[in-house]
């Protein structure tokens, strides 16, 4: 087993380490809002929808980040116009995502013959992360922090009671759109490291587990951050040790964390009920 300190010592892994720390920080914050506002599917779908755009950018030398952000924001805008964010996906959305994935695969394998890009774009990569990726991730963290401070209470109010929030005079529609746009940018930032299929590992799973143990929104944010960092670092180490892309181990760890906590809290509640019966 290689030493975990290699992550900091070896130069080619330092970027991966920095990227994961940045993404986990953004993920810890954003996943709380994503879970509260029921945007889990939207987050995952944005990743899939961006995939073909990244294939084209990758092959044609256009900056993938710019192409990715353009596509992701376009998708977010479309969803927002259709009023479907936070609702269960329609059949049309499901087909759109299938078309995006199928289109991306055909472009990658047969048009551009960059078949190796498919695995990397879908599941992430340990090596080959560029400065631009780190810069975008850092920007995402900054945006997430600022937005959480400025809009956090509004987002919480909307999550609790959408109609009441508007009645309170809060700019619900604009706040929602900003959240969708932020998620879109964040998803693009995460794709290089964890892949288009597994962005939910960073942006949904940490807060899902945190929901089980947090009793207030600040606690939710704190626990979510803690879980995201832990899962990200351990997942990164596992990727290095087992020679895998980082996406899958982080996803598995996130799901396991949720499962273990769900069992633990479920057992505890069952005991409480039995004690008070």
């Amino acid at each position, binding site marked *: 087993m290689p030493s975990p300190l290699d992550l900091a010592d070896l130069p080619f892994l330092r970027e991966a380490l920095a990227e994961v720390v940045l993404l986990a920080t953004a993920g810890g914050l954003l996943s709380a809002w994503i879970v509260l506002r029921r945007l889990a599917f939207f987050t995952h779908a944005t990743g899939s929808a961006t995939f073909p755009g990244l294939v084209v950018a990758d092959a044609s030398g256009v900056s993938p980040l710019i192409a990715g952000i353009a596509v992701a924001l376009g998708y977010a805008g479309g969803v927002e116009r259709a009023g479907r964010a936070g609702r*269960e*996906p329609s059949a049309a959305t499901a087909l759109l995502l299938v078309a995006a994935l199928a289109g991306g695969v055909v472009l990658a394998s047969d048009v551009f013959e960059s078949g190796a890009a498919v695995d990397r774009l879908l599941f992430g990569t340990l090596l080959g992360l560029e400065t631009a990726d780190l810069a975008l991730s850092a920007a995402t963290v900054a945006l997430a922090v600022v937005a959480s401070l400025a809009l956090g209470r509004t987002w919480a109010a909307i999550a609790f009671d959408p109609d009441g929030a508007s009645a309170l005079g809060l700019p619900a529609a604009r706040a929602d759109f900003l959240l969708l746009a932020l998620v879109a940018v964040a998803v693009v930032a995460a794709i290089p490291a964890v892949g288009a299929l597994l962005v939910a590992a960073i942006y949904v799973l940490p807060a899902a587990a945190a929901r089980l143990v947090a009793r207030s929104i600040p606690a939710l944010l704190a626990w979510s951050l803690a879980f995201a960092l832990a899962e990200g670092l351990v997942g990164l180490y596992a990727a290095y040790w087992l020679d*895998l892309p980082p996406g899958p181990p982080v996803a598995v760890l996130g799901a396991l964390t949720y499962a273990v906590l769900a069992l633990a809290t479920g057992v505890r509640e069952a005991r409480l009920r039995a004690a008070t019966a």
Partner: protein
Amino acid sequence: MSGIELRATLEVVLAGGFCGALGFWVLSERLAYAGESLSHGMLPGLVLAALAGAPLLLGAAGGALAAAGLIALAARDPRLGSDTGTAVAVTGLVGLGSLLALAPESPQRLEELLFGDPLGVGDGDLVAAGALVLAGGAALAALRRPLAATSFDPAGASALGLRPGLVRLALLVMMAAAIAVAVEGLGALLVLAVLVGPPVAVRRHVRNPGAAMLAGGGVAAAAGVAGIQLSAQAGTAAGASVALVLCAAAGLGALLPARRLG
């Protein structure tokens, strides 16, 4: 047409035909998202079958069962809501499946499992597709009236002596079986297209469920043939080509003016 092409076409016509017919009910009962979650979540089952050299159908069935159970558990957590819970379960399962498949010791078959491999169809798969059409078709014919009554008005269906809960369960089982058979050709990520694309293509143009099922099956079969041909002529990935034709058919059907056949 070469032997491989013929088998591939036969597979997509049989499996797709049934899925296209069943899809009308999947849409009516709003099960598209459940179907998508199930097909993504069965990835670990597929990978394990591939690693063990076992038939993919076995892996698909086992994977579907496990996925259904885990998704149902997670979706029931009231603190998350059903869509977040489903996302947790599906992300974990896709992560697990890809982890197993991408381990350096594994044979590199992940892309086939994700995007389908109609050209790799064997005799066993054709038998399974045929069995699906026969058994599934019989089930659909028998359940046709209860399905219609339940979709149209669940409370009224109850009063008529039907059991909407059981009808829905039967539909879920058929959907899982259909996905398990079709996933060989289209892959876990794309198989939903054959279940949802055909009914979206035809639903504005049909007058009753019977016509919807027949037309859906027909569209699926035609799309399958066209997709395989496209793949052969243009050299594109076969599974993805079929999926793209299905999505195009859905878009076309949704945009054309309604004609009300049947």
